[in-house]
């Protein structure tokens, strides 16, 4: 078994009132280490010269008195008391039975920690005692303040202005759209044309033969499409039949006989 490390870490600090007096309440301390430091200071020697045994006794007496007065003790103070009691008994034991680390080492560690805490507590006091702004020294009550006003100098040039105007005018000028009159053969005229031509013969005729012979290429394409749709329409009405040998082969049409009669 190794000796327990000193219980130097305790419960969170509470908002405790500042005090220099040794109250029986433990509210005056920032934890057990702080209380130990106060007790050690009472020995009025360098913290590295204090008698740990005396310090332990003082602490334990203090805790006992608090207990006798039925004061609620924070657990961390009790943990420290238990540890100190252990330390004391270890220090009183014969050397041969010493644990590792030795009680002297634990005591030294406690002293070093007290020394450090003491140093910081003193430093804090000296720091707070300095000439502080707003308490000891004061800044100017109503400084005028320094301001930098930024002024923008705008630049442009005549060409940009004229060009911009031109662009506005161009962008917003009314526009006229010309839609070219495209040569088309409507479905109606194709129907009329195909059915009248079918009336002439009972023979198979190619769709191509229905196209106007001297038409422009554009009109021819329109006529081809319209004539094809007209052929489909006549077939659907039962007045003609269509025939094609294969894909892209010439498409042929002829009048149905009874349809002619009808």
């Amino acid at each position: 078994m190794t000796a327990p490390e000193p219980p130097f870490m305790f419960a969170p600090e509470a908002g405790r009132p500042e005090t220099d007096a040794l109250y029986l309440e433990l509210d005056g301390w920032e934890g057990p280490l702080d209380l130990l430091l106060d007790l050690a200071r009472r020995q009025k020697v360098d913290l590295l010269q204090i008698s740990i045994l005396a310090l332990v006794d003082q602490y334990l007496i203090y805790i006992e008195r608090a207990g006798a007065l039925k004061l609620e003790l924070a657990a961390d103070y009790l943990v420290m008391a238990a540890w100190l009691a252990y330390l004391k008994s270890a220090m009183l034991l014969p050397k041969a039975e010493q644990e590792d680390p030795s009680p002297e080492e634990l005591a030294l560690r406690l002293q070093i920690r007290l020394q450090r805490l003491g140093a910081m507590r003193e430093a804090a006091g000296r720091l707070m005692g300095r000439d502080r702004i707003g308490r000891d020294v004061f800044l100017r009550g109503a400084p005028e303040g320094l301001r930098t006003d930024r002024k923008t100098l705008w630049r442009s040039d005549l060409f940009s202005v004229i060009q911009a105007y031109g662009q506005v005018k161009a962008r917003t000028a009314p526009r006229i759209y010309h839609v070219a009159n495209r040569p088309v053969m409507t479905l109606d005229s194709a129907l009329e044309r195909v059915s009248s031509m079918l009336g002439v013969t009972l023979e198979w005729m190619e769709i191509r033969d229905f196209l106007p012979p001297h038409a422009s290429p554009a009109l021819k394409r329109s006529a081809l499409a319209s004539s094809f749709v007209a052929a489909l329409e006549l077939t659907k009405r039962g007045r003609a039949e269509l025939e094609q040998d294969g894909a892209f082969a010439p498409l042929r049409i002829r009048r149905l006989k009874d349809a002619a009669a009808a």
Partner: protein
Amino acid sequence: MSEEPNDEPATLERAVEATLFAAEAPMSVEALAAHLGGLASGEVREALGTLEARYAKRGIHLVERGGRWHFETAPDLAHLLRREKEQVRRLSRAATEVLAIIAYHEPVSRAEIESIRGVQTSAGTLDVLMEADWVKPAGRREVPGRPVIYATTPDFLDHFGLASRRDLPGIDELRAAGLLDPVDEAMEAALDGMGRFEPDEEDDTPEPEDDENLAD
């Protein structure tokens, strides 16, 4: 330090000095006397006189205004408090268009500008032109709503090197110069790009701001 013995200020003088320095508002002789523990006004007045003379040539002056005293920056150094930084910036495309419309159509209301441009004009655009002092409000149009109408200023003619607005090229001249041709996006982008290389564009770069350092 080679200060003369008489340079050492009297206690009361130092007290008045510190009190006025820390005060948040100017203080009367009576207020000072009371603050300093019920002194006689005469003593305070004397200390104020000494201080006033001491600071007469410094960067800060002790001055009396309406019976109350305070420290303030010497008048000849007032420019240090408010420093002006000039920054040259090129007019945005939108602002240039609005400026052009005002120049060609003035006086013109905002609604009319918008109808000519075919887009809404943000409030800042007119502000910029007025800040540049090229455009000013020129009354109101006597129509319902009485909108403000805008016109160009003499500074506008000045900056753009025009003797008068009649010097602006007319529509026919614009057309002849090809400036009325529809401009497509690519073309506009190209023109914008060219703009970057104009000599005065260099000034556009915001200057390094050193006043930020003052804050911390």
